[in-house]
């Protein structure tokens, strides 16, 4: 049962964008794309992160713990627990749609050769993550909110231009309102069960015990029953309406 954090040493820090860094470490973890780990920043906190490779995480700076992570350099140590969760289970022709830092788990799916078409979205050109690598392994389509690169608008704008029904699996990760826009389109076509959505909820234990990450209406645990859920499981309930913060209060 013992799953004490595995202590890793950072070997390289890659600046991906002004707000995103990749931390490469000295140990390999056997994970499936979409699975995540808990990253212990000693003295600060422990937070969930998708693997961006067997030996790396790719992090957007959003608050205290990620800021502390950003101050770390090669030679510094982290604790890693995991991998956790179910990961994506794609079959047939696969479309991936990633927005913002949500591209990370989908990037590993594409890197393993599983994605046919990739729609990548970001606020602006300089916040696009992994675009060059994704172009090598998939048919990449890009949207930026401000039109500084590719399609001017949201990823759903590109989705409306392609024949989504021709895809057997649609893997999605990104801001919840973006995922909602995609789920609505899949529901309209009656193919929401082909959608696989990677959810983000507040995690504490990551092993399905504490209840912090549970979602309404089925009470499913994002850390253990997810983080990837098919569209039919989330289309009713709290998705795109609310989530719970660290105390369990609805936000």
């Amino acid at each position, binding site marked *: *049962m*013992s*799953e*004490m*954090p595995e*202590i890793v040493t950072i070997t390289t820090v890659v600046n991906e964008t002004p707000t995103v860094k990749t931390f490469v470490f000295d140990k390999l973890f056997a994970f499936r794309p979409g699975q995540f780990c*808990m990253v*212990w920043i*000693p*003295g*600060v*906190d*422990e*937070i969930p992160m998708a693997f961006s490779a067997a030996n790396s995480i790719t992090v957007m700076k959003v608050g205290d713990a990620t800021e502390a992570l950003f101050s770390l350099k090669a030679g510094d*140590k982290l*604790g890693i*627990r995991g991998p956790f969760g179910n990961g994506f289970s794609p079959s047939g022709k696969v479309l991936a749609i990633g927005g913002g830092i949500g591209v990370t788990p989908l990037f590993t799916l594409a890197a393993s050769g599983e994605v046919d078409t990739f729609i990548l979205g970001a606020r602006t050109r300089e916040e696009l993550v992994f675009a060059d690598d994704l172009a090598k392994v998939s048919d990449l389509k890009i949207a930026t909110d401000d039109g500084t690169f590719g399609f001017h608008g949201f990823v759903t704008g590109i989705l409306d231009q392609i024949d989504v029904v021709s895809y057997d699996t649609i893997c999605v990760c990104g801001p919840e309102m973006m995922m909602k826009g995609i789920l609505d389109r899949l529901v309209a076509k009656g193919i929401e069960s082909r959608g696989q959505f990677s959810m983000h909820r507040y995690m*504490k*234990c*990551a*092993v*399905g*015990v*504490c*209840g*912090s990450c*549970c*979602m*309404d*209406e*089925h*009470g*499913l*645990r994002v850390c*253990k029953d997810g983080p990837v859920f098919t569209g039919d499981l989330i289309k009713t*309930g709290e998705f795109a309406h609310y989530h*719970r*913060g*660290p*105390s*369990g*209060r*609805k936000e």
Partner: protein
Amino acid sequence: MIQIKLPEEEIAGVPLRNHMLLAAGILGTTGASLKRMLNLGAGGVVTKSIGPKAIPGHHGPALIPVDGGLINAMGLPNPSKDFVEEIAPLKGEPVVVSIFGGTPEEFGTVASWFPDAAAFELNLSCPHAEGYGASIGVNPRVVRECTEIVKTYNKPVWVKLTPNVTDIKIIGKAAEEGGADAIVAVNTVKAMRISTELRRPVLGNVFGGLSGKAIFPIAVRSVYDLYDAVDIPIIGCGGISSADNVLEMMMAGASAVEIGSAIYDSVNVFSEIAADLYSEDGIPAEEIVGCAHV
């Protein structure tokens, strides 16, 4: 193996569907997850402990699986009064509301929010929340006063004890004197781990509480001791993961049990245990409760 019958009457004032409840703090933060555990075979559920104000909990790591169990220092995260709305859809189900406070008055305040609770469980035993739980639950006078105040809300009151005391019987008797309808034994056992590579404690809170198989013998011993000391029913808790463990707890003196950490291995643990434990021609549980006392 011995098999028993499903309960035909209330246990400690609560109409349980079987002898096994979900323990406090395990998948107990939302109404939907509690409902899910009832659907998955729990005979009743105990909620996350609810206190006088919303608390985010300790920084992580907050829970670490170790050999034979889990160590947690969640720090009693809870949404406080918002939880009333959370469990409103469960009205009429066997939902025991776990509550805590820093003083008897605070226990009373929190109890007043939940007129639909099937019973209250007083958390006088969490080992990692300063000013709450075990830090007041080691004092027999405070335990009695908290029980008395919550008793005024006319519901069954279960008092949950910490094993981290010299003599658990004294605290159990104090709860009984205060009018408790049952004793729940036990909460987690104070514990910690250190990362040898980082030369520092793993838990964000430094120390926490051990649960799971590793503490089963401690829990059995606590129940056995209490059975000699009090006349009210005892609910056994700590490390239970099989039908045989349930029987052993009953033989020590437990009328029912609570199960938490075994969820780590299987979310279906209640129905899995029930399949082994129950039979229509089983014996009534009352026949074995306390039968091991020599």
